[in-house]
C-alpha cells in the first residue's frame, strides 16, 4: 500500500472518536503513545482492536494495515485481521490471515477456532471439522458451544459421537444432552432419547418440565400409553412442589394441561 493512502487512513483512525468515553480514553492514551513511537506495531494493533471492539471496522482495518506494513509477519496482527474479516463476513480474506496467524503461532487455539469458522463459512466442511477436532483435542476445558459447532457439521450418527465425547468430558450439560436428544429423535431412536431425558430429569431439582417433554416425545413416537404415564408423573412432580410455587398461574395452567393429557390422547401430538 502506498504511504499516502496509509497516512490518510491513519489520520482517519487517529481522529477523535465521536463514540463513547471508553474509546476516547483509550484513544487518548494510544495516540499519545504512538506520537512518541509512531512505528510501534503493537500499539497500532491495540488501537485497531479498540476500534474493532466498537465495530468501527474502517479505523480498525487502517490500524491493522499500518501495523502489518511495519511488521509483515506478526501473529497477533494476522489474527486480528482474520477476526475482523470474519466479523465482516469476508471468510476468504479471514482464512488467508488466519492461515498466516496459524503458521506464525501454531499453539494459538483461538486462531484455530476462528479458522474453523472461516472454513465452515466457505463451505469447506471437512477441513473445518478437522480444525475443530484438533482444537477440541488440545483444549483442557473447551466451551460447550465449540462441541455444538463441531457436531453441527456432521451427519446425525457422527454428530452423536461428538456429543457423547463432549458429555464425557464436560458432564451432562443440558445444551449438549438436548442436542443429542434431538439427534436421537431424528434417527428414530426414541428409547435413547428418553434415556437422555431421564438423565436430565434425574439431575433436576424440579422435574415437571422434563417429564412433560418425555410425554411429548412418547406421544410423537405414537406411544400413547407411556405418554399418559409420563404426563401423570409430571402431574405428581407438580403436586410435590410447595404451594407457593405450585399456585402460580403458569403452573396452574400446566397442571390443567397435564391433567387433560394424562387422561386422554390428543388427536395430534404437541
Amino acid at each position, binding site marked *: 500500500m502506498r504511504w499516502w493512502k496509509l497516512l490518510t487512513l491513519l489520520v482517519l483512525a487517529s481522529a477523535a472518536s465521536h463514540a463513547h468515553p471508553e474509546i476516547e480514553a483509550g484513544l487518548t492514551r494510544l495516540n499519545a503513545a504512538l506520537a512518541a513511537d509512531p512505528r510501534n506495531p503493537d500499539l497500532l494493533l491495540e488501537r485497531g482492536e479498540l476500534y474493532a471492539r466498537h465495530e468501527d471496522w474502517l479505523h480498525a482495518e487502517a490500524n491493522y494495515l499500518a501495523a502489518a506494513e511495519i511488521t509483515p509477519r506478526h501473529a497477533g496482527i494476522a489474527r486480528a485481521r482474520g477476526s475482523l474479516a470474519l466479523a465482516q463476513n469476508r471468510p476468504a480474506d479471514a482464512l488467508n490471515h488466519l492461515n498466516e496467524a496459524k503458521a506464525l503461532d501454531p499453539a494459538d487455539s483461538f486462531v484455530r477456532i476462528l479458522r474453523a469458522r472461516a472454513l465452515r463459512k466457505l463451505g469447506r466442511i471437512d477441513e473445518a471439522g478437522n480444525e475443530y477436532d484438533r482444537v477440541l483435542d488440545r*483444549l483442557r476445558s473447551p466451551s*460447550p458451544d465449540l462441541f455444538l459447532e463441531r457436531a453441527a457439521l456432521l451427519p446425525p450418527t457422527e454428530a452423536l459421537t461428538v456429543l457423547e465425547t463432549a458429555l464425557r468430558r464436560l458432564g451432562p450439560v443440558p445444551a449438549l444432552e438436548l442436542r443429542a436428544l434431538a439427534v436421537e429423535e431424528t434417527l428414530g431412536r426414541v428409547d435413547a432419547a428418553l434415556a437422555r431425558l431421564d438423565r436430565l430429569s434425574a439431575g433436576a431439582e424440579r422435574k415437571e418440565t422434563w417429564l412433560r417433554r418425555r410425554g411429548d416425545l412418547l406421544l410423537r413416537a405414537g406411544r400413547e400409553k407411556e405418554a399418559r404415564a409420563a404426563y401423570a408423573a409430571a402431574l405428581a412432580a407438580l403436586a410435590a412442589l410447595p404451594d407457593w410455587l405450585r399456585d402460580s398461574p403458569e403452573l396452574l395452567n400446566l397442571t390443567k394441561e397435564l391433567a387433560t393429557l394424562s387422561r386422554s390422547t390428543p388427536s395430534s401430538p404437541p
Partner: protein
Amino acid sequence: MILRPLLLLAGITLILAPISAAPSILRGPYLQSATPDSIVIRWRTDTTEGSVVSYGTERGQLTKVAKADGVSAEHIVQLNGLQPSTTYYYSVGAAPLAPPAPGKAVAEDAPGRPSTYSFTTPPPVGTVKPTRIWVLGDPGTKGDIQRAVRDAYYAFTGKRATDLWLLLGDNAYPEGTDADYQKAIFEMYPVTLRTSPVWPALGNHDGRSANSATQSGVYYDIFTLPTRGQAGGVMSGTEAYYSFDYANIHFICLDSHDSGRNPDGAMMQWLKADLAATTRDWIIAFFHHPPYTKGTHDSDKDSDSTGRMNDMRGIFLPVLEQGGVDLVLTGHSHVYERSPLINGHYGKSPTFDAAKHVLQKGSGREGGDGAYRKKRGRIPNAGEVSVVTGSAGHAGSKPPPLNHPVFYIAMNEAGSSVIDVDGLRLDLTFITDKGEKKDWFTMIKE
C-alpha cells in the same frame, strides 16, 4: 584473624537463610465456589510449595487439614464435609499447622505462625437467612475512587458480615491481566477476599486477557467457578456462565461478553434449563452488559459494544423475565441507573411505553411510594428491577445523558450497591464513594 569474621558471617547467613527463603503469600487467600458443605480456598506464593489448609471451628484449634496434591505457587484447596451456617477458622501454608500442645495455647501472632482467617459457610439451600451481598460493577481502576467506594461500603456495613460479593465485570483495568488483577482486586480487597466468597462475571476488559471459547486466560486462571452445578442450579459445563444458590436466593451469572449469545446457543439452553429448575424465592441475574443504559454507554446504539447490549435485552431478557427474574444487575456503563418494577421492554428506548412496561411505578421505597410487591412463586413476567451499577471504580468523566426512560433514577456517581435479603424481603441500597446513600428500594414477595 580473618577466619573469625568469615565464620560469623557464614553463621548469620545460615540463620537467616530459612527466613529469607520462606515462601511468602503474594495473593489471597481468597474464597471461591462456597456451598453449605464445601468451599475452595486459593492463594499464591512466591515459590512453589505444598498446598495445605488447616481449619476448624475454634480459632485456636485448626485440627482439620485439607490439601492439594503436588507443589505449586498457585494453591487451590477444596474443603469438603463442612457444616452449613458455621464459622470456620483457617490458615494456609505448605504444611499442616502444628496443633498446640495440650493445655498450652499458642498466640496467633506468635513468630512464624501463619495468620488465621475465618469464613462462614452458606446456610442450607432454600432456608431463610438474612443475607448481605456487596455488588461491584467495573471496580478495577486501582485508584483513589475505587478505594473510596470500598471504604464507603466498609463504613456502611461496619461489623455486619458480607455474606458474598458479586463482581459485574471489568474487574481489573485496563487489560484484565494478572498484574491488573493483582492491583485492582487482590491488593484492593484482601480482607473481603479471605472472609467472603466472590462470584465474578466477565467484562470486556477482563476479556482482553481471557477467552471463553477456550476457557483460558487470566480470568479463568484466577477464578474457580462451578461448572457442574455443584453450588446449586443446573450445570453449565463452563466457568463463563454459571449459577449458584445462597439461602433462598438463586444467582445466575451470564457471560455477555465472550460466549455465544444466539437464541439456540449453549448459554441460552442452559439458562432456560436453569430457570426451570430452581425453587428458590429470589432470582438475581448478573452480567456485564446492561440491557438499558444512557450512561457512558448507549444501549440504543447498535455499534456500541458490538451489539452486546442489544443481545442481552432482545434475546436474554425475555427468557429471564419469563423465568421469573427479580433483579437484573449489570455494569459496563460507569453510572448508576435503576428502574422501577418493569417487564417486556425489549426494543430501543423510543419504544418504551411506561403504561405497558412498568408494572409498578414509583420509588419502591417504604414511606415513599411504597415497596415493589410481587406475588411469591415463579410467576413469568411478574417484573424485575433493572440496576446498572457500574461505577465502583469511577463514574463517567463527562456528564452522560442519563435519560433512558426505563429508569426511575440515574446518576453519574461512583459507588457500589448493597443487597439485603431477608426471607421474602429484598432491599437494595446504592452507596456513593462519599458514603452517601443515594438510592434505595425494597421488593417484597407476598
